[in-house]
């Protein structure tokens, strides 16, 4: 290993004359009689790609892991990884992953490339390696935010805003689900989804997936697993498989094992607790106990019938995330825990999270760390995090979005079916994915708001408005006159009111309910 300037012990391992060396300082005894010239700057590391491009890198690695060393390019925009002992299959697998990049990001490379640090080219010199984008410097590992002690330290050292807000976490989880969904739809799994491999910004909800050189493809003999995962995020069938049974093929990472990791990450990212770590203890041997509680005997802390793994102290359950998210958690950690095929897909998580986002309201307590929460369907409106009752308008509009039933039938339940619930709040925007059925936020949709909810406090009674910016056809069907709400105009929202948007197969009905807050 190369010597760093300022190293306390001189080469050769000799004890410097003059005795001990102050920690981190220069050797006192052999200090030269005249000022030393600044140590020579080591030349850049010369890295050459497989197609003979030369990339100069900083000579010292910024990280040395078990697989290899990581260097910044001299311009600081990219990262080079050089494997310390490349296995014979590594080159082919790396080339396959680099080719997959174009395929996975085909529809919108500018959009997707921010979501991954994906190998872009193979390095041939000074050894087998890869070059990839450097993640934005305002990101930090998700693990920093999930550890209470680490979080406290971040706030102490960088100010409270650095840990972001709960809604920032919701944004991170939406993007994580989208990122994983894209991989899975391309037939790939990541195989080591963990809080260490997610770089996030809880202030703006950005999320980038790293460690993408271990991607696995089902049935492939080239994209084979290199890791089984990180214990807390490994699916029970993988944890049980760590001790392989002779003659039995040990399980390998798949889309389904990724889906377990994703579910744990979402649960932890939103509720700050591991869904399988409750009070149950299965063995006096702690290693065996860990293997059982994450593997064979894994039991959801919120299991509806078996309460033997409930935490000892009261805790916030997935119920605070609303019924749709709660149901997905149950599917992931009850139905699908030991039945991989039953686990919710990444796209289902994404949809549920987007819908959950639309149902959040800000907390009235300025000292609340979470700053927002999901408005419960009924009951007292109290922030679950800080327990402070919400203050604000006496009533807020809830918009129930209906879409045309796909079977085209018209029976007692009508032609329309309930799609989702949207909580109106002052300045909350409506987007194309609310207005057009079957659309979701993502790479191929214009995110410019098409409408907005506005609250107008009045001397006698406050009023809520829907501002139509660019929605094509909005008609108030509660009114016999069927007045049209033209673009760049607004309509006051009333309890029981119904608005029809669009025409034909893609039409929607929005039903407005004014919900009493206090």
């Amino acid at each position, binding site marked *: 290993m190369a010597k760093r300037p300022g190293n306390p012990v001189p080469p050769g391992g000799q004890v410097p004359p003059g005795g001990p060396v102050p920690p981190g300082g220069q050797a006192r005894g052999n200090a030269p009689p005249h000022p030393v010239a600044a140590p020579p700057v080591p030349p850049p590391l010369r890295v050459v790609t497989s197609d003979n491009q030369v990339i100069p890198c900083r000579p010292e690695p910024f990280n040395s892991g078990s697989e290899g060393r990581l260097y910044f390019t001299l311009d600081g925009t990219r990262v080079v990884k050089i494997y310390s002992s490349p296995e014979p299959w590594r080159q082919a697998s790396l080339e396959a992953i680099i080719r997959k990049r174009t395929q996975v990001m085909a529809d919108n490379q500018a959009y997707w490339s921010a979501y991954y640090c994906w190998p872009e080219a193979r390095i041939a010199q000074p050894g087998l390696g890869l070059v990839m984008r450097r993640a934005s410097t305002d990101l930090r590992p998700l693990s920093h935010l999930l550890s209470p*002690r680490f979080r406290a330290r971040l706030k102490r050292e960088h100010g409270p805003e650095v840990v972001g807000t709960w809604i920032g976490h919701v944004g991170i989880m939406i993007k994580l689900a989208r990122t994983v969904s894209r991989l899975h739809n391309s037939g790939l799994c990541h195989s080591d989804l963990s809080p260490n491999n997610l770089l996030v910004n809880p202030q703006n909800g950005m999320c980038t997936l790293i460690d993408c050189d271990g991607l696995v493809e089902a049935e492939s003999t080239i994209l084979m697993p290199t890791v089984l995962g990180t214990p807390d995020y490994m699916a029970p069938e993988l944890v049980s498989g760590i001790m392989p049974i002779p003659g039995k093929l040990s399980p390998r990472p798949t889309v389904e094992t990724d889906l377990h990791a994703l579910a744990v990450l979402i649960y932890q990212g939103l509720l700050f607790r591991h869904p399988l770590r409750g009070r149950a203890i299965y063995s006096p041997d702690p290693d065996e106990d860990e293997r059982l509680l994450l593997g064979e005997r894994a039991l959801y802390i919120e299991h509806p019938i078996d309460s033997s793994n409930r935490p000892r102290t009261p805790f916030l359950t997935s119920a605070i995330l609303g019924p749709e998210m709660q149901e997905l958690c149950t599917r992931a950690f009850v139905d699908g825990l030991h039945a991989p095929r039953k686990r919710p897909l990444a796209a289902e998580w994404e949809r549920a999270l987007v819908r959950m986002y639309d149902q959040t309201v800000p907390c009235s307590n300025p000292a609340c760390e979470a700053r927002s929460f999901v408005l419960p369907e009924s009951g007292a409106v109290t922030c679950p*995090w800080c327990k402070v009752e919400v203050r604000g308008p006496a009533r807020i509009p809830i918009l129930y979005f209906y879409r045309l039933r796909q079977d085209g039938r018209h029976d007692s339940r009508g032609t329309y079916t309930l799609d989702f619930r949207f909580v109106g709040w002052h300045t909350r925007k409506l987007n194309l994915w609310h207005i057009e059925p079957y659309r979701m936020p993502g790479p191929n949709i214009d995110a410019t708001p098409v409408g907005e909810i506005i609250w107008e406090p009045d001397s006698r009674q406050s009023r809520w408005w829907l501002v139509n910016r660019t929605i094509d056809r909005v008609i108030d069907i509660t009114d016999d006159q069927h007045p049209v709400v033209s673009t760049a105009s607004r309509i006051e929202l009333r309890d029981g009111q119904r608005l029809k948007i669009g025409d034909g197969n893609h039409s929607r009905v929005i039903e407005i309910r004014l919900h009493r807050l206090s």
Partner: protein
Amino acid sequence: MAMNFDESPSRRLPVYLLLDTSGSMAGAPIVAVNNGVGLLYRELLNNPSSVETVWMSVITFAADAKRQPLTELTHFTPPVLTAGGPTAMGAALKELGRALDTEIIPNVPGGDRKGDYKPLAFLLTDGVPTDEWQTAAEALKKRTVGRLGTFVALGCGDEVKVDVLKAITDKVLLMRDVQGDTLQEFFRWVSASIKQASIAAPRTGTGESLTMMPPPPPTIETI
């Protein structure tokens, strides 16, 4: 007001460092050890899962053994070690046994709280014991309760007797040429062994066994 973190006491990972502070360590070696412990502490402090789980204790040995109680990482202060005196390694092993008797929380099915992970111990010495050490070494090996998960002994320099270390544990590492750099690498390796990392997948055909420990740096020989 807080984010409803899981506040129940989590499983602790006790880590014992047994450090030789005898006279032969005086000068550069003890400085390198001080730096190494500081490095280990900082590396662990930058790792969220270690911050949540690791508890540290330093047992130094020279004329006798001195033990710091097991301390939560965030409350731990790396000691400033000075060297001088003989090598009471036996006393240090006895202290380790005492610590394992009194400081380790057992994992009891049906119990109130999660017990500790199996404790890790790292012994660093540059010499031979000057006291009786066999009894304490035997006792450590025979333990059933509070058994060590891993016990690594690092011998530094030419004076070390490999058979003595081998009699204490079967994981013996040797660093013939002791320098600040190599010792730093050792402590970095200790930190990597403590941190919870991804588990490597076994490649078909290689038949390699799964191990939780990363390979030691190339400057260190595995005996």
